[in-house]
């Protein structure tokens, strides 16, 4: 028989804002296997695309993994519309990639920007469990986009909350929070930064003058996620590296962020077509509903 896939059932859905949502998915084997820093690939339906998402949390007792997603393109907006509690993913595979290094650090700054706040959480927790002094720096555009502040407070020795508009925490980008942490502590072993490429590039620039070891998690375009297609190749230290099997974490000071950003825009035209076509379909559907009623 072709075994029916494990149901990949969504057991909980939480909306952080109009565009950001959380899916907690049942997959007991993956909950046991997952380590901080790893990612999964998801297909929401049979005709869907395979999209990589960094694991935002895993709960071995509940047998679940948690994903935090931003609705930007056709696939993620369609998922936002369709994936309510009780719905099922068509495919969920992982955990993929090399886990974060957590051992051997005494003091670490964990920086999360926007959506990147989510995947930094299990790293902060893992570091804390191993006895490190964890300084969290999390940044959002404004107060109404903030999520998981309490979860971070529970695993961080210090937490610096930043907002672009100053509506919560300190006013400024996460790099300002990172600078504050760096000036208050001269004995930081490592900085982990996850967020949009432009934010990770800024964090790398902030720590570079001090030669402070800095790790970023890259999110290039992928198809299989198992080291076969080469779509995820990134330039690190002038060499081609495959983020799916050699990453996703790399030395921030070696990463060519411009190259990453250009490559992320590779399918922009097609993505626009898909989104417009989908929105058109949604509008037609919305118009059709009263007619049927």
């Amino acid at each position, binding site marked *: *028989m*072709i*075994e029916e*896939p*494990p149901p990949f059932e969504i057991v909980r859905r939480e909306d952080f804002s109009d565009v950001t949502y959380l899916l907690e998915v049942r997959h007991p*084997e*993956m909950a046991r*296997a997952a380590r901080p820093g*790893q990612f999964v690939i998801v*297909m929401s339906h049979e*005709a*869907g*695309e*395979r999209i990589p998402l960094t694991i935002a949390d895993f709960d071995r007792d509940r047998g679940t993994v948690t994903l935090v997603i931003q609705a930007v393109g*056709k*696939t993620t907006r369609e998922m936002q519309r369709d994936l309510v509690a009780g719905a099922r993913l*068509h*495919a*969920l*595979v*992982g*955990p*993929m990639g*090399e886990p974060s290094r957590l051992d051997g650090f005494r003091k670490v700054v964990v920086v999360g920007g926007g959506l990147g706040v989510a995947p930094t959480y299990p790293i902060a927790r893992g570091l804390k469990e191993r006895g490190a002094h964890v300084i969290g720096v999390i940044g959002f555009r404004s107060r109404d986009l903030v999520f998981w502040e309490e979860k971070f407070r529970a695993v961080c020795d210090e937490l610096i909350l930043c907002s672009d508009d100053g509506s919560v925490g300190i006013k400024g980008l996460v790099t300002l929070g990172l600078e504050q942490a760096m000036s208050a502590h001269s004995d930081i072993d490592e900085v982990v930064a996850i967020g949009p490429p432009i934010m990770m590039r800024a964090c790398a620039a902030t720590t570079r003058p001090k030669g402070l070891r800095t790790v970023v998690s890259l999110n290039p375009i992928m*198809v*299989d996620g*198992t*080291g*076969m*297609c*080469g*779509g995820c*190749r990134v*330039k690190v230290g002038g060499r*081609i590296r*495959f983020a799916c*099997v*050699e990453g996703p974490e790399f030395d921030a000071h070696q990463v060519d962020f411009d*190259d990453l950003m*250009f*490559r992320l*825009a*590779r*399918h922009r*035209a*097609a*993505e626009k*077509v*898909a989104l417009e*076509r989908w929105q058109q379909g949604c509008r037609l559907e919305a118009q059709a509903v009263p007619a049927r009623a």
Partner: protein
Amino acid sequence: MAPKKRTIRTIPPERTAMAELPAAERARTFGEVACGYALEDALRETERCLFCPDEPCVRGCPVGIDIPGFIKRLGERDFRGAYDTITDTNLLPAICGRVCPQETQCEGVCTVGDTYAPVAIGRLERFVGDMAIGEGWANVPYVEPNGLKVAVVGSGPAGMACAADMAKAGCAVTVFEAFQQPGGVLRYGIPDFRLPNTVVDAEIEKLTRLGIVFRANTLVGRLFTIEQLVGEMGYDAVFIGTGAGTPTFMGIPGESLNGVLSANELLTRCNLMHARDFPAYDTPLDLGRRVAVIGAGNTAMDAMRVSLRLGAEEVLCVYRRGREEAPARAEELHHADEEGIRFHWLTNPVEILDDGSRGVRGMRCQRMELGEPDASGRRRPVAVAGSEFELPCDTVVFAIGTNANPILGQTTPIALDARGYIATDATLRTSLDGVFAGGDIVTGAATVIEAMGAGRRAAAAMKRYLGLRDTDAVYQDAAPDGELFGIAAAERNYARVRVA
């Protein structure tokens, strides 16, 4: 009067032609190119077999199919008998009949071939396989369960062949696949116009009737390790057949431009993810109008012919050696030629050129000439001084081979060879007790039937390891030699035949 004994003088000298879609028509669709034999074609072709006593074709087949036996039954219109004969050794005739490189295997050593074109064994095998699918035949032997559990990692040709043999020996077999559908390279790699996915589905369905369980969306090594399989999960033996690894690029400037991709990415997006049906399917491909494919192996031919069908106006093949040295099957080269691929032999790219917005506007290439033979015995291509020129194109596809997939090495203390492939002994045992490996993850890129042969050899060794009586004497235990189609396995910087 008794019928005369068949001799080379009495058989039809001409090989029976197989209908093909006309090149102009097929080059824009994914319909299967080779239409297959009609019944009368197949019967006529069986008349060309001499049933020679030494059966060179059987020895030429990596899985040792009783070729004269099935041809004889087919000629007698005993179609089911022909199918039963093939499936004694090969459960996937509809696939192998299409994709094996018969010209270097069974047909390459056919006695008739010394005088005329050899018997079209592959076409006959496909005829029988297709008939079995059409008629819904499947040979499901009664197998007494022996209580042993076998895990197969990877559902491509090597894994399928190993799984089939272990299931027939009475083991409970589970095949793990990382993609959302099983089939491996047969599904993501080989395009529908050479091997329709409906044929792959039908052949997999037959394997499930042997009791084999396919489990998709399962990345072994990461979701659970090989040690967990043989430990807490209770598997008695494991076969690793994970296939191709990371694509090779050349290391020339411009490789990270948008519009540069590997053949594996192009084929996976198109075949597995249906990018050809975008936007009805969500996966995009964004192929350009003038596509240059680097390499001249079978994967390169597939990538070129897929590009044509996706609407490219012009598709170029760029290869640093000459046509004679191209590793693709003659038939694939011929099909690509017919469909209008422009070949640039003895041409080597040295830089991919930026169009100003991180796309591709062309490649700077140099002309090559063939010098002294290198380690592989082929003449080494040497750059012609002052021969650089620009070749305009907007998409560049690399089809120059693959490297070892690192995942199992990262997650399991298993011995690897110097190139990162899984190290095995001649019986395909790895350094871990009860764990066997075969196919591309051991040899590097090879063919579907070679992977199947490896899967079967590993199954034979696995049965001995498990103390099962080997009920099948047909296995060929010879170690694979160091060459594929006369190409040294050590050479990597070109498209070796990966699927054929």
